[in-house]
């Protein structure tokens, strides 16, 4: 290389060093402002004083809540920003935290993702704000999900107690009874597919959320979490129930290999070729907007049980609002979160189609007696509220479930498209998750 270009490279190197100096300071200094107790008087004072609260959330019903809140507290300005949906937003949040700049004051975080932020203390323990007092006002599943160790790291915004959505028109047409156990479900699947080879009992192309929810319902405890000690095991009795049943459905090609949330999926829900959908109670709003054509065809039933006569459910999806540690105006931020997730905001959100996590609202007669025109006038909330009560509370997600779920289809997905067995797929998922946990400094117990 000629001398001159070497000089040039040196110049560029210098430039980079300048840029580096500006950026390579991503360490974390812990100023724990969260230790001090914040009384409700403090919060009231902050509300009077006013200020701006930046909220990152993709939940559509918050828009009205923010407007109402601003009306009630005219000095407070809520800046509601849709910074992306789930993973996009988490990455944006992590980036902002790494840059220590532009961190929102409130962030929507799904239950399965909360553990990671709690463990690394990137979000605030809300105990100091009196969040623990609200424990009894939430149904057990969601409340358990926002707790990590002894801390409370968010307030539950919505919940997804599971139910079985089924296409009554299809069931009636082929005279199939609504299954109450998973064995009956498999039977129904066979009967349906035999009667109409284009119709399937459900669609599943591998979905980490569904699998973990079904494991949860089956009483499995695949994840054990104790601080930085983690255990992963997909071979307990509950997991076996799940994998045996689901293996049958896959082997006999009884589930449509349609990926959830795609156009094909929406079409399948609409035209009767996908006959049931076991999912969370937040689904009705999606039915109403995404599957308009099938209005009146669908109904809601309790989840099929793994054991006859049992009454177990689980949660699917749902998210909380949390306060990032680097956010500002914590008092105001907490006031907004409490208003939205525990106070008057809950009713507003229910009216706009959200499914609450608060027991008072779940049990209220106006909520339970709401008739859903989409479901032929059925009072579907009764089924959902009943389900919410039957969620086992001892379920844990990994503190790095976001990563684990991202590789679900790399591993368990093989069971859907090849001769790999579900148990082998789960084992591969387990191994990959163990490997990642070890790399990240967790003590992983297989």
């Amino acid at each position, binding site marked *: 290389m000629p001398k001159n270009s070497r000089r040039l490279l040196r110049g560029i190197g210098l430039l980079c060093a300048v*840029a580096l100096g500006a950026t390579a300071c991503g*360490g974390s200094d812990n100023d724990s402002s969260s230790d001090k107790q914040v009384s409700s008087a403090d919060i009231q004072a902050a509300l009077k004083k006013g200020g701006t609260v930046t909220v990152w959330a993709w939940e559509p019903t918050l828009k009205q809540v923010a407007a109402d809140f601003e009306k009630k507290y005219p000095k407070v300005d809520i800046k509601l920003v849709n910074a992306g949906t789930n993973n996009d937003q988490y990455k944006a949040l992590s980036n902002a935290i790494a840059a220590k700049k532009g961190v929102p004051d409130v962030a929507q975080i799904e239950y399965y993702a909360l553990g990671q932020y709690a463990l690394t203390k990137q979000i605030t323990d809300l105990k100091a704000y009196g969040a623990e007092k609200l424990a009894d006002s939430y149904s057990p599943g969601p409340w358990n999900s926002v707790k990590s160790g002894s801390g409370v790291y968010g307030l539950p915004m919505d919940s997804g107690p599971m139910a079985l959505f089924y296409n009554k028109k299809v069931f009636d047409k082929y005279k199939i009874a609504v299954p109450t156990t998973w064995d009956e479900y498999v039977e129904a699947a066979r009967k349906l597919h035999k009667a109409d080879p284009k119709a399937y009992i459900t669609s599943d192309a591998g979905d980490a959320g569904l699998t973990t929810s079904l494991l949860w319902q089956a009483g499995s405890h695949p994840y054990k979490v104790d601080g930085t000690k983690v255990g992963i095991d997909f071979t307990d009795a509950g997991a076996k129930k799940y994998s045996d049943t689901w293996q049958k459905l896959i082997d006999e090609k009884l589930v449509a290999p349609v990926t959830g949330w795609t156009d094909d999926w929406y079409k399948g829900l609409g035209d009767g070729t996908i006959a049931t959908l076991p999912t969370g109670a937040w689904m009705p709003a999606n039915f109403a907007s995404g599957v308009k054509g099938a209005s009146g065809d669908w109904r809601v039933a309790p989840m099929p049980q793994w054991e006859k006569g049992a009454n177990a459910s689980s949660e699917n999806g749902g998210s909380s609002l949390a306060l990032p540690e680097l956010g500002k105006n914590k008092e105001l931020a907490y006031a907004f979160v409490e208003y939205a997730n525990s106070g008057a905001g809950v009713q507003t959100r229910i009216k706009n189609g959200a499914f609450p996590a608060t027991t008072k609202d779940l049990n209220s007669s106006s909520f339970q007696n709401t008739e859903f025109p989409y479901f032929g006038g059925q009072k579907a909330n009764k089924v959902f509220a009943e389900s919410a009560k039957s969620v086992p509370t001892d379920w844990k997600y990994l503190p790095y479930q976001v990563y684990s779920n991202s590789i679900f*289809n790399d591993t368990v997905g093989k069971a859907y498209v090849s001769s790999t067995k579900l148990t082998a797929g789960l084992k591969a998922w387990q191994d990959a998750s163990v490997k990642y946990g070890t790399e990240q400094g967790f003590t992983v117990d297989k």
Partner: protein
Amino acid sequence: MTTLQPPAAARPRPAGPPVRRARRSWTGWGFIGPFVLVFALVFLAPLAYSVYLSLFRTQLIGGTTFVGLDNYQQALQDGQFWDGAFRVGLFLLIQVPIMLGIALLVALAIDSGRLYGKDFFRITVFLPYAVPAVVATLMWGFMYGTRYGLVGDVNDAFGVKLPDPLSADLVLASIGNIVTWEFVGYNMLIFFAALRVVPHSLYEAAEIDGAGPWRVITAIKLPAIRGALVIATIFSIIGSFQLFNEPAILQKLAPNAITTDYTPNFYTYSLSFAGQQQNYSATVAIVMGVITMIVAYVVQLRGMRKGA
């Protein structure tokens, strides 16, 4: 670093007056300075920062430690990385020749003057280039659907059972098809532009000597546009090695066929975005960048030497 540059442009032309190279001065920097400055800011600085990051390891538990070249050692032994690298290598060997081949044939056809409505051809074949990869993949994703898509419709209409384009065996070919669709017209135009300025006197001489159209193509036209072919190949190699948009978007439709480590670029994305492993992600990207440069360099050397 490769020595890739516009070969002839850098050299003084034999025929014309010499480029003014007598006075080596800094005046040129006044003109290229703005480009270099912005380039340093948006390319070199992040690149240097990535090299710096690649020497560290950050854990969720335990924070950041200096690990020297450990990440590089890990990358070189990483089966997931090499699987992806071989996959894009295979993609490169098959898709690039097909894409450039079609582009070349269309360019030759339009240039031959034997087509009806050649202007219409030229502009229409080029149009897909205007479509964002997001939209292009969305459209093809629909066509690939075996239930409601075009494949499904064809199956129903003719009572056949076409293989599923999104199955694990075929999805790479399906991605290749999308990329081909997007860039055939673009490459065609490059070739066509090169063909247009081949002096016509050369053809006349050959035709007088009794050479047929194929002979004219192989003996005159192709050698004349070899520079265009080489550059198109090199940029296509870089494009193949960086394959990301199409598999990333198609993954939503075929999550089991397209893994999160499907291509090296997708792998670095997954490491960084889902796995929070920015350090290792940077390492993999740098290793892939070096491989890309080596391959591009070799192709350039061979392409320029052959029959020159």
